[in-house]
């Protein structure tokens, strides 16, 4: 993919190491603005690491990242992170209630979240209002994922990085979240980049897809590529997952 005016994130020959381990290898590519791009690939491929780079939690050892055609380093880190929202794979919570977690993004800016707004967020992710003042310790893995997604939405980011946000959800909740994300994408033209292990999900929500393996991007294109992969490794991966 080449850079264009409607590219929101562009990576040029990005390399990332952890100590001596080469984790991301010469990643080049871009994410189109206002679209949903899914990121698939086996465990350990480097998908989460790529998200951490885009959110600015880590920096590449070499190569450049551009956000809206400006080097990522030109942005103030806090502004960048509010605009490139990340829903963590682990759905980490701060200790306290669901409400204090939902209020966190605003409280970091010295603002308050209205209870009404918090309830609306819970409705959006299909979590009952009664959970608002529950302690997050008592939530199930799936409920936690819902709170995590809702919390990421509070900053109204221009780009949403969603890291396996439905992995612990039942079929119905999963579809609800998918609908919610598609709705956000359509209503606010929010760019979505979505890591998923669920190829069905990738096919149903994604406009574009990146397939990553072993720290490399092995195939990119319209999501339909998953139906007919060119790369032999991708073919095996797709068949393996579908079995």
């Amino acid at each position, binding site marked *: 993919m080449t850079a264009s005016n409607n590219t929101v994130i562009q990576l040029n020959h990005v390399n990332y190491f952890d100590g001596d381990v080469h984790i991301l290898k010469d990643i080049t590519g871009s994410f189109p603005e206002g679209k949903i791009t899914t990121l698939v690939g086996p465990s350990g491929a480097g998908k989460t690491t790529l998200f951490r780079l885009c959110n600015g939690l880590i920096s590449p050892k070499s190569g450049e990242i551009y956000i809206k055609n400006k080097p990522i380093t030109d942005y103030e*880190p806090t502004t960048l992170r509010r605009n490139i929202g990340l829903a963590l794979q682990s759905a980490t919570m*701060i200790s306290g209630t669901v409400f204090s977690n939902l209020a966190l993004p605003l409280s970091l*800016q010295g603002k308050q979240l209205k209870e009404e707004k918090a309830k609306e967020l819970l409705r959006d992710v299909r979590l009952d209002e009664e959970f608002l003042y529950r302690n997050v310790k008592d939530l199930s893995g799936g409920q936690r994922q819902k709170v995590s997604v809702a919390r990421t939405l509070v900053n109204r980011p221009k780009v949403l990085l969603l890291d396996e946000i439905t992995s612990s959800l039942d079929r119905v909740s999963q579809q609800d979240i998918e609908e919610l994300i598609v709705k956000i994408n359509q209503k606010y033209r929010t760019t979505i980049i979505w890591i998923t292990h669920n190829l069905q999900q990738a096919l149903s929500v994604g406009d574009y897809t990146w397939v990553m393996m072993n720290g490399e991007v092995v195939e990119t294109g319209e999501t339909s590529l998953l139906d007919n992969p060119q790369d032999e490794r991708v073919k095996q991966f797709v068949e393996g997952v579908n079995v």
Partner: protein
Amino acid sequence: MSYLTLALALIFVLIPILLSKTLNLGLEKDTIVAVIRSTIQLLAVGYVLQFVFDSESMIFIILMIMLMIFAATHNARKKGVTIKGITWKLVSTYVFIEVLTQSILLGFHIIPPTAQYIIPISGMMIGNSMVLSILFLNRFTAEIDTHQDKAELILSLGGTPKQAIHKQLITSIQASTIPTIESQKTIGLVQLPGMMSGQIIAGADPIQAVQFQLLILFLVLTSAVVTSAMLGFLSYPSLFNNRMQLLKNDKNT
């Protein structure tokens, strides 16, 4: 007390060694090392103090205090090797504690400006500050390790490093100062503080010994809270880089 009677006191060294041997506690070597070290160190300090007291020179007092700060830093820095520039952060903390306490004590004429007062009180302040900094660093590095994910969550949502580490910082300051505060609540009921006991044994008026001990307690309280808070606020920025990224906490110094 003569050296002969002091030698008899070695009976109290034999007891733990024998006990350790019979019960296989494996403490013999450490006990012997501790006894030899404390004997040599304290005797040396005794002679040095005598010399400093006789000389009545401010230079020697300051040299003594610098030596104490050096020793305290050397001891505490091992607990904070993961924090960049920990040596200077510790030195600044100890110097600050020393200057703060002495300027109040001397400034308000609470104690006379003689080596006899300045040195023992400095020793207690710096020693206490050292223990507190070790407690703080132990807790803080552990907190960061276990709650790294929470710190990163806050960063990822657009929080600042200070916001990301605030909870861990406060917890560590509290945890390290609580023992000091708690132990002061029961002081005198269970055990008499060492300095007061020493003064009473040496023949001082108990009320005067108590007054002095109270002074020391208040100083210890100050040095405890100031040490943890100051060290905390000096330390946390070095856990992040200028891109507000949490630095990986591994063996690097």
